[in-house]
């Protein structure tokens, strides 16, 4: 997209990722500097295991060791508090303490981890530090917490009577992780869904708000949010928490910094127009708005990788069979060894991945082929080299070519493994296929396709209650699928049909317990509370009951439903789908150049994507709802009846500039030609977002070349996260 390249970025995020490591190094420098023992023997790092992938993501460990003078790493003994632990797991601190004068604990800062540290200090470390014979040996004991909870951590350590013995440091910039140039993620377990919806904790929201504030500070306040949009009660809560954090932060600024902020505002609000020319939008959405999408099978390259192998911290682990042909004379032997290969996605310079990551896999695979061909041709070009200069130019490209070849190898490996999973086992028989025409393949021997088809049927509401029950149970009997997959279908059914018929709900319950045991009982209970898998309520959902009655009180209704913890917000899927064109009918679909963002899921557009798109363009909607002369959700009231949760839309004008906006905003003005600063659109996805949704968001935003998308989320999630968050 050339138009984007010419835009001046509002903030250069390159440093945002590296600042985490810099901060960590800085903390270690502080620890070293404040060391009471002048003899530097390096640090012993006691690391909470769950933080290890984060560290690995941020920096190769060897490099970190060099930078921080960490000499050795042991795991935090998280079982230490259990009474029935195996004694052999004990880490021998006595020996370690002879070697190290500085012990640094790196923990999340949860109560559990804090108690572990305190217990280790009391039972494993203090006995040895106190009984040392030379008396002058001081030990430096430091604790780094990665969460924002340093105030409470401080208090907890005080409660445990060890606060005086340790130096407490906060390394809050460990998150969000920059997963790609436009995605920042806290990488919470299952996207923080459990915290949000099972426990009803605002912790995730609070951390997201903190992350956004950090981002703004990182941009030296160049990110000045002018418009905010929020849908859903948690989203509204986010705005409120963010506002509090922002105000607290601003009140703590030095007068010089305050002046800087005022200057930015002055430049931004010269007149009514200037503000709209330099928009920076904050769009806050929560998972409750759309539990449908994350349950569907993701069909983009990255999404499918996540679905099939699981992508964690941009890394895929895939099992391959290695074929080694041993040429032993005439009798060639083929040795097959299974091994698992780790493939890193989002590697810098991996252009191939950037080209295919958001594509529907059906398109990605051919692209891989043609890329391979091109690459081979480039390699072959060496044979055509006629003179020294041509050879030289080839050699100079060689490094890149080899790197690209490696990338290609990795992606080919992934693609082949994916194809194995999704292709029908039974051999294609073209002659027969032609004769059979539309007849459905009775064998259904391919799980992937059967699953996909069933999803589509449910989404399109093709099946009546009875048929739906039959289809799902048959799927269950036939494939004996994992619990998660059955649950996905049931939740879809429940959302689409606004609850499952009481009798069928009971039967499903029985079937599931029968198959997977009573341990799934509590999971179903929690999903029921979340209104994800639930019986239809008794005041039955008759055809469009509330439309006319509740329309006038749309606004007051939004405050009623503003209660925290309301979970599944889709109220009327059928009409929502029609209103937002979630399942657009595309004539002659061209997968290579899709016109609708429905390529990432089986013919389905995520609600998030539509909500974001609708701010800037309503072209996808019916004529009547289109009218909007300026970005925003104006004229979108009907949505309130279909999708619960309050809807907020604010223009953030400082009080001093309010008089400029006393009159209604003027129509959109032609943008000045020399306006080269890009406009940031920050989408905050509370409760996680899937790869497929990210792809569609990118697709939608690419239609607005002056806008730059930045997604901040509590985690990149997949379907199993939605189910597992309900497990204990």
């Amino acid at each position, binding site marked *: 997209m050339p138009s984007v390249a010419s835009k001046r970025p509002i903030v250069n995020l390159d440093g945002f990722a590296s600042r985490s490591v810099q901060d960590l190094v800085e903390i270690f420098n502080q620890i070293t500097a404040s060391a009471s023992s002048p003899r530097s023997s390096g640090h012993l790092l006691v690391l909470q295991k769950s933080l290890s992938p984060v560290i690995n993501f941020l920096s190769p460990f060897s490099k970190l060791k060099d930078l921080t003078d960490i000499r050795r790493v042991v795991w935090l003994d998280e079982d230490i508090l259990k009474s029935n632990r195996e004694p052999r797991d004990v880490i021998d601190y006595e020996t370690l303490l002879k070697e190290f004068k500085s012990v640094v604990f790196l923990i999340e800062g*949860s*109560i*559990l981890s804090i*108690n572990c540290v305190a217990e280790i200090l009391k039972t494993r470390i203090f006995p040895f530090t106190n009984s040392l014979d030379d008396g002058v040996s001081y030990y430096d004991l430091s604790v780094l917490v990665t*969460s*924002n909870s*340093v*105030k*409470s951590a401080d*208090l*907890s350590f005080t*409660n445990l009577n060890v606060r005086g013995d340790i130096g407490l440091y906060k390394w809050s910039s460990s998150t969000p992780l920059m997963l790609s140039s436009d995605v920042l993620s806290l990488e919470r377990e299952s996207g923080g869904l459990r*915290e949000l919806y099972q*426990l*009803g*904790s*605002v*912790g995730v*929201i*609070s*951390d997201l708000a903190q992350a956004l504030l950090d981002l703004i500070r990182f941009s030296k306040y160049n990110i000045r949010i002018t418009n905010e949009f929020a849908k859903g009660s948690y989203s509204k*809560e986010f705005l*409120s*928490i963010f506002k*509090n*954090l922002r*105000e*607290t932060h*601003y*009140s*703590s600024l030095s*007068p010089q910094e305050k002046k800087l902020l005022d200057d930015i505002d002055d430049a931004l609000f010269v007149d009514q127009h200037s503000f709209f020319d330099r928009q920076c939008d904050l769009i806050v959405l929560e998972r409750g708005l759309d539990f449908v999408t994350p349950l569907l099978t993701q069909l983009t390259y990255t999404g499918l990788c996540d679905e099939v192998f699981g992508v964690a911290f941009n890394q895929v682990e895939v099992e391959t069979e290695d074929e080694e042909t041993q040429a032993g004379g005439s009798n060639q032997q083929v040795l097959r060894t299974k091994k698992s290969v780790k493939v890193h996605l989002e590697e810098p310079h991996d252009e191939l991945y950037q080209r295919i990551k958001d594509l529907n896999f059906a398109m990605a695979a051919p692209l891989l082929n043609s890329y391979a061909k091109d690459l081979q041709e480039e390699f072959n070009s060496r044979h055509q080299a006629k003179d020294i200069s041509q050879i030289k130019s080839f050699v100079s490209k060689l490094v890149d070519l080899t790197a690209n070849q490696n990338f290609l190898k990795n992606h080919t490996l992934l693609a082949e493994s994916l194809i194995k999973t999704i292709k029908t086992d*039974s051999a294609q*028989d073209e002659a*027969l296929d032609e*004769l*059979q025409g539309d*007849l459905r393949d*009775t*064998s259904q*021997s391919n799980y992937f396709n059967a699953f996909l088809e069933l999803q589509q049927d449910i989404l399109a509401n093709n099946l009546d209650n009875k048929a739906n029950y039959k289809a799902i*149970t048959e799927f269950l*009997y*036939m494939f*004996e699928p994992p619990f998660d997959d059955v649950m996905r279908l049931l939740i879809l059914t429940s959302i689409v049909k606004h609850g499952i018929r009481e009798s069928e709900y009971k039967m499903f319950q029985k*079937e599931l*317990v*029968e*198959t*997977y*045991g*009573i*341990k799934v*009982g*509590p999971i179903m*209970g*929690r999903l029921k509370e979340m209104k994800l898998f639930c019986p239809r309520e008794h005041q039955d959902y008759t055809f469009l009951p509330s439309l006319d009655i509740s329309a006038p009180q749309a606004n007051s209704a939004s405050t009623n439903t503003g209660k*925290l*913890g309301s979970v599944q917000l889709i109220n009327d899927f059928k009409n929502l789908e029609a209103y937002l064109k979630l399942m657009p009918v595309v004539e002659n679909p061209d997968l290579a150049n899709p016109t609708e963002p429905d390529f990432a899921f089986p013919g389905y557009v995520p609600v998030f994507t539509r909500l974001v798109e609708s701010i800037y363009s309503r072209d996808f909607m019916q004529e009547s709802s289109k009218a909007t002369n300026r970005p925003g959700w104006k004229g979108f009231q009907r949505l309130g009846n279909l999708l619960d949760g309050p809807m907020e839309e604010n223009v953030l004008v400082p009080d001093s500039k309010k008089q400029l906006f006393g009159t209604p905003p003027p129509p959109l003005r032609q943008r000045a030609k020399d306006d080269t600063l890009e406009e940031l659109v920050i989408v905050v996805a509370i409760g996680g977002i899937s790869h497929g949704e990210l792809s569609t968001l990118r697709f939608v935003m690419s239609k607005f070349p002056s806008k730059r998308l930045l997604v901040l989320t509590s985690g990149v999630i997949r379907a199993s996260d939605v189910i597992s968050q309900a497990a*204990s």
Partner: protein
Amino acid sequence: MNANPSLGWERLQDVFYRIRECCPTLNWSQDLSKNLVAVAPFSSTIAMFSNKFGTGAVHGTFIKVYSGSGSEVCSIPWLNSNGDIVALGWNDQMHLIVVLSSGKTRVYSNFEGDFTEFSLGLSTGETVKEAKFWSSGMVVRLSNDQFVAVTSYKRRVMLWLEEIVELTLKQESVKSWALNPPLYNRELSVLVSTETGIRAIGTTTVQDMGFKAGASCHLIALPRVGDFVSLFTKDHTILIVTSDFKTILSEFSSDNGGIPIQMEWCSNDAVLVAFKDEIKVVGPSEESLAFYYDSDVVLSPEEDGVFILSNDRLEFFSKVGDATAETFRLGSTAPSAVLLDAIDQLDRHSPKADENLEIIKDNLVEAMDVCIRAACEEFDAYWQKRLLRAASFGKSSVDLYNPEEFVEACNILRVLNAVRQPEVGMFLTYSQYLNLGPEKLIEILLTRQQHYLAFQVAQFLDLPVDPIFIHWACCKVKYSRDLSDESLFDVVMKKLEPRKPITLAKVAKAAYEEGRTKVSIMFLNNEPDLNKQVPLLIEMEEDELALIKAEDGGDADLLLYVLIMLQNKLSLADFFQIINHRPKAIGVFKQTLCQFYPKLLQDFYYQDDQVGKLAELELDSEYGNHNLIKTQQDVDRRRTTLHGVSRLLAKGGVDAQEDSVLVQSELYLLTLQEKYTNAYDADFFNKSAVEMLEKVLSLASLAKAAKAQKELRISDKRYWWKVAKVLAKEHRFEEMYEFAVSKRSPIGYEPFYHECVKYGEKRHAALYVAMCSRLNYKQRIRMYLVVDDLKSAAEEAFKKRDLDYLSVIEERGNSVIKRQVQEYRETMGGRR
């Protein structure tokens, strides 16, 4: 006023010194000789304690604090029962330090009598004899001639200096000592003169300087900067030596026979010795100056000079700066002097003004710079103005001149003149001001409660004014005991409102400390930073309000902080009571505390009567991670748990009772698991009903499986599927076929076909195709083809008269099939 400042100058060798009056008269009537006196840095305040010798058991003695101009700033009542004051001192925070003979030390943080006290921890019998102070600490000499240093009052860091054995054993006695503070990369040490010489005591070393001439000297003094030491020896000689005591730089015999009281350095140029009635100034040569007084004097050294306090006046003794000297020296022809003269001429409307400019035109800029610098040095506004005018006059004839220095000098002089007014009485010199910095100056003004002046200065120098308002508000709160809560709040907020957002926690704290909780909360409600607001509310026992505030803010860390605080101080019941109906608090509670203390969650659900949740917890822990049944005890435990859960649920609502049904059937399943485990001698525990059925199928005959199906209450469809799957997997195809044809299948026969295909049993698979009556013939043909039964496929195609399929089959078949197809074709053709 002097016609020329130089008239008051005194020359010592080739250097001019001058002594300037800071304040014409001190408006006190104090006799320095009867008081303990401590002059604060910059002579901003002077502390005095009248009961110097601890004689009178007088009631109502006071530590009086005066400004530099002698007006009383405050007076701190001192009861003799508090202890005997040995020394008064100041630190650079303008905190008054009071050292008692018992070793107790008080640090007064303001002039309202607020202090913190700490003890040096002396052993019994030890008392403090003397104390000497530096900007951030002090050294005390104890009665047993040990020296103790306090290097930080705030952190109360005390260092016991190395002891000199001869002293502590009383073989020798201390004649005098001086403190070498730990500044400029020097380590703290004390120079001690005894009968045998001079020793330097550090924290770990004692060094004998071997300087016999310094034995038993009356006084020792060190300059702030520079490696010199001055000694006043017992034979009344003032010696100036290098700090390593190797070289004597100057030796001066005093003609005053009296006992010297104090010796101080003026910068590092000259030494001042104060006698009872005279001050002698000794330079590096034989010459000396003498100033006579009719009272005791106190010397207070600064970086650039010495303050001299006598009974009736405060003076500043300093070297005349180069700029001032060359401008004012009589007969000076320096450019600055000429420029200054031009102003005189100008005032007289003499044309010589221009001539003067002409003379120095090549050095005009230099002349202006010097004039500006000289102006800064002057105390007298008349000369300041005159010099600045000279500079400004010169400026008019220079094309390009950077006016920054000029403007800055004007600004600073304005500030300095303001604080030098008798009402304030801080005789800060220009260079002292530069060292101090404007922020510090404002702080000092605030401790003196000069709020308006501080505000003016801050505005004038473009510094933040918020701290001034806050300080004012705190004082206002403190001194407005008579105002009602509302009016106090209104008065304060009227001033602070326009300054929002401004942090009010300090004001609230001040109010709380005054015991005015209500108004304190009113202030806290206006505090923008919850992190400051909430902890204070908890301190004030406003638990519920703190929780509400933390909830409103939504910062999870702060919420957790409050929860832990509340949990620390409240009983569990009260704790639950307070968090009840606070969804965010409960959320954070569940996410954090309960993850670590699962029992807490149980208690919470119990008090809240959440039966379903309690049951869920029970089940989770029973079926949780790797909690498998291995022994009979496990079985019993599980049964007990399930019974418990079932009873629990029975008490609940409709939903709970429905769940209770599930638990009941699990109990039933457990019984079956026991039964089957015994019957089949295999482990049936930890399995679902379907898994149990599968196990029976693979272990036993179909008849037994059918019985198990009934017992396990598994539907026919599920059963048929399971049979097909298990038997095919175990290659029991014959059995499977028998079963398939024994009854009409509720699931059709495709599953049987597919399962056979899956395990490569094509022959058996073909048997089921014909039974798939629900399927289209095309599909059947395909099924036949998959299992290589071309004959049946052809037959099927023939039945439906499908020539297309027949040709496809013909293509794939061997000669037998081809012939067969040919036959079919003919038959069909024959008919046609």
